[in-house]
């Protein structure tokens, strides 16, 4: 019986797709033409705007999204990002973002996408069935009648042998691409086609989201872990797609759950990193997701004991279904990888870890869930504060604890000339991106040997900063002797968010003896605070009332800026610099949830957090002697 029903549905599906198909090609071409026409019309700001969005989004079309209670689909995801309310599953509360996003990309797991028999084959016997013509009839009465008959026939049974004659997969992938296109409006809201390659050898996370700049020459099937669990093979697939005219990049994430494998100093076959490896890795994956629901992997207190802010939303687990703690810190956190990258580069092996950063979500329920006071969880079942906080009924407590330790989603900020696929993708490739833990604070970061001390006093300083220097993601190399690099940094709070506490510059380098070092500079402080002789700053304070889940902007600043010269610069040493902006403390999602449930916030979770932003670094490379 099951087969019979499937056959009928497939029959109809085939005929529908067929009829759609004849128009499809021309439709697609038209859309593309329209878009390119429109993208010319979209005004550009050469000094760039920050566009916020997410590219790591699952829905029920990812199998684990479905099994964990998501009731939404890619179409819902895009609607959510644009501000519509969508079904939430869980306790039934709809999902709705407070302030819409600028761009979004659904990136389902590739692993179970190619599940269906190909239905668009013009030779398919399905298309010949008379019922197919009737059901797609323009005459509504006729169509409805046919529809009813089919439903009826399902119950009687119909021969189904044809099913096994059709070949190949009509994958969900094509459908995902189409849905994304429907929601792409250049200048207003941008979408991308994307999928996730889900490799996790022995539950060590090596996942990558693969994102396409546009749908021209896009491969007809994504690449999955069933094809290969090695990142090098994914890059081969990407190179091949590029050779065939596609434009794409990959974004790895959750080094924290990789137990040292994400930024290992060897390749997948345990061979030393070569220059070719580094170049291939960087050509294919310019960005790293530094924060998401499964925690932040910027820095770990064990690796950076002098960083008082390193222990932010650490999610210290592997992907094992049975709670398992990773053992290797090294190779799991980005700051350490930045340092290791310099070391490799110094050795002549290239820098395989020269990543720009974004923040992202990894939601499996369409909504990236970035707002701390509007957190709805990672999976559909978590769309219920009781489940998030007290645990999923029937689920063991260690697993529930993992859910409680989930962070809210992060955001990717992209500095681009316009909100179009082309402009956003180019900015991602040149790493002119920043990450936030979900807040929409904006951070500018420029470096140069040539900036004047008065640069930032001019209203037009951004223009001059571009002209005489490089933005985040850029490179500096040796200038005239005795000059130190100068950095211009500016941060402004999210319009409806919390004030800013401070701006920090984090510097890493390889010293004369070949050892890696890091140092954190507090370069701008709110409320007129100053650093002491050793560079430390007094804490900003904390206005959070945990029992009421409130805070006030009585402390902190609306914006902060600084022009900073590296006081310890050595022109012979490889170095990187990146910016971290901290907000004043605000309630964690779990504190808002406790308030909602009328219970005390849990003692085993922080009641408040300092949300933050991270810029992509600017690297300094000495000119070879």
């Amino acid at each position, binding site marked *: 019986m099951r087969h019979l029903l499937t056959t009928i549905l497939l029959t109809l599906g085939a005929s529908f797709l067929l009829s759609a198909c004849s128009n499809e090609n021309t439709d697609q071409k038209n859309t593309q033409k329209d878009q390119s026409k429109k993208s010319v019309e979209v005004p550009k700001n050469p000094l760039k705007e920050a566009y916020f969005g997410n590219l790591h989004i699952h829905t029920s079309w990812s199998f684990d999204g479905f099994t964990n209670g998501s009731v939404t*689909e890619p179409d819902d995801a895009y609607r959510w990002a644009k501000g519509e309310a969508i079904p939430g599953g869980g306790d039934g509360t709809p999902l709705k973002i407070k302030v819409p996003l600028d761009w979004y990309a659904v990136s389902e797991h590739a692993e179970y996408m190619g599940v269906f028999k190909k239905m668009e084959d013009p030779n398919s016997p399905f298309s010949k069935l008379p019922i197919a013509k009737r059901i797609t009839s323009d005459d509504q009465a006729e*169509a409805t009648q046919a529809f009813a008959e089919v*439903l009826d026939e399902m119950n009687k049974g119909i021969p189904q042998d044809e099913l096994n004659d059709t070949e190949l997969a009509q994958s969900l992938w094509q459908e995902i691409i189409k849905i994304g296109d429907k929601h792409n409006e250049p200048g207003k809201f941008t979408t991308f086609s994307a999928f996730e390659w889900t490799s996790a050898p*022995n539950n060590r996370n090596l996942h990558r989201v693969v994102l396409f700049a546009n749908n021209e020459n896009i491969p007809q099937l994504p690449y999955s872990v069933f094809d290969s669990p090695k990142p090098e093979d994914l890059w081969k697939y990407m190179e091949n797609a590029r050779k065939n005219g596609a434009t794409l990049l990959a974004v790895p994430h959750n080094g924290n759950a990789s137990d040292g494998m994400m930024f290992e100093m060897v*390749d997948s076959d345990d061979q030393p990193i070569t220059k070719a490896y580094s170049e291939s890795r960087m050509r294919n994956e310019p960005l790293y997701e530094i924060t998401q629901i499964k925690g932040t992997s910027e820095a770990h207190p064990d690796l950076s004991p002098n960083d008082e802010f390193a222990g932010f939303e650490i999610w210290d687990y592997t992907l094992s279904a049975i709670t398992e703690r990773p053992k290797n810190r090294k190779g799991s956190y980005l700051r350490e990888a930045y340092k290791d990258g310099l070391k490799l580069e110094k050795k002549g092996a290239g820098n395989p870890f020269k990543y720009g950063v974004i923040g992202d979500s990894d939601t499996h329920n369409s909504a990236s869930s970035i707002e701390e006071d509007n957190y709805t969880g990672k999976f559909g079942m978590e769309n219920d504060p009781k489940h998030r906080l007290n645990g999923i009924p029937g689920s063991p407590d260690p697993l529930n604890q993992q859910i409680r330790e989930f962070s809210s989603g992060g955001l990717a900020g992209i500095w681009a000339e316009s909100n179009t696929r082309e402009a956003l993708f180019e900015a991602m490739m040149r790493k002119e991106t920043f990450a936030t833990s979900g807040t929409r604070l904006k951070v500018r970061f420029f470096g140069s040997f040539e900036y004047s001390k008065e640069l930032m006093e001019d209203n037009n300083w951004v223009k001059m900063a571009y002209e005489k220097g490089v933005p985040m993601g850029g490179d500096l190399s040796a200038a005239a002797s005795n000059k130190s690099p100068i950095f211009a940094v500016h941060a402004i709070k999210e319009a*409806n968010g919390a004030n800013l506490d401070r701006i920090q510059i984090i510097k890493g380098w390889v010293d004369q003896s070949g050892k890696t070092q890091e140092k954190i500079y507090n370069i701008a402080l709110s409320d007129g605070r100053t650093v002491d002789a050793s560079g430390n700053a007094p804490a900003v304070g904390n206005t959070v009332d945990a029992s009421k889940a409130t805070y006030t902007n009585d402390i902190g600043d*609306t914006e902060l800026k600084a022009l900073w010269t590296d006081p310890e610069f050595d022109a012979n040493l490889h170095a990187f610099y990146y910016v971290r902006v901290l907000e004043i403390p605000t309630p964690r999602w779990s504190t808002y949830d406790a308030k909602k449930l009328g219970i005390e916030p849990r003692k085993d979770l922080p009641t408040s957090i300092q949300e933050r932003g991270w810029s992509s670094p600017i690297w300094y490379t000495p000119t070879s002697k």
Partner: protein
Amino acid sequence: MKRIIQEPLIHFLLSGVIIFCIYSWSANETDKHRKIIIDDAQLAHLSGIWELQWKRPPSQKELQKLIEEYVEQEVYYREALNMNLDHDDEVIKRRLSQKMRFLSNTFSTLADPPTDERLKAYLRENEEQYQRPPTYSFLQVPFTYDHHSNPEEVANKLLQQHKTSKQEDHLVHTGDPLFIPKEFVAADTIQINKTMGGAIVTSLSDAPLGQWFGPIQSGLGYHLIYIKEKTPATLPDFHDIRNQLERDYVYDTEKMGRKMIYEKFKENYDIIITSDQYQELLGDISLQHTAQ
């Protein structure tokens, strides 16, 4: 990456082999003659999938590997079926139920194709949703807590001093440095809210044109504002939003179609509840379908 070899899956498969050995002793004679046939069609299928990914046919070596993988999967799959490992497997149940929903999706769009006529009716029913938001061209002068303990008062004073002036450039050079545009040109309310937050958007709607007013509180501070031009919300022409209408119409129709298909399927079943506890649990259990 030797850990790949340590995959629990491998361990699982090894235990599977052991079970298989035990099982094969007890299996009857005919089972040993089952066939896995690689015919032209199967080969074309395997290399077709490959081509979808790589845009070229597989090499001989690659094809060989694809066949090996296929055979391996098929062997395990059939052995698993033989051992009834598919029975009551929650993952398989969910997978098939998900597949059925996917098919229903395709199916449900067939019922009411989006003709112009239907889309026009749809637009009439949902006019509000398609209104283009109002736009404003205005100047803003900010006053923030970063520079004053009471920015509202500072702004108010300045406004009083210039009360008589109708010239926009009188105030525009005052205020605090703040890294947002001094001038917005035909910006829509969504954009203005993203940049400034607070009460800005609601204050703009009934504010006067061509004169300074305020201070208005945004998420960033207080502002004196001079509106040069405003365009009210407008309903775009049908043809300009036809694509959008079609997208939304199909989305809504699919939802309804899915619901209908589920109801139809459900009619095939008698749902019989024999549980004694059912009455107790009634408050928590819903037999309503969850398809959205």
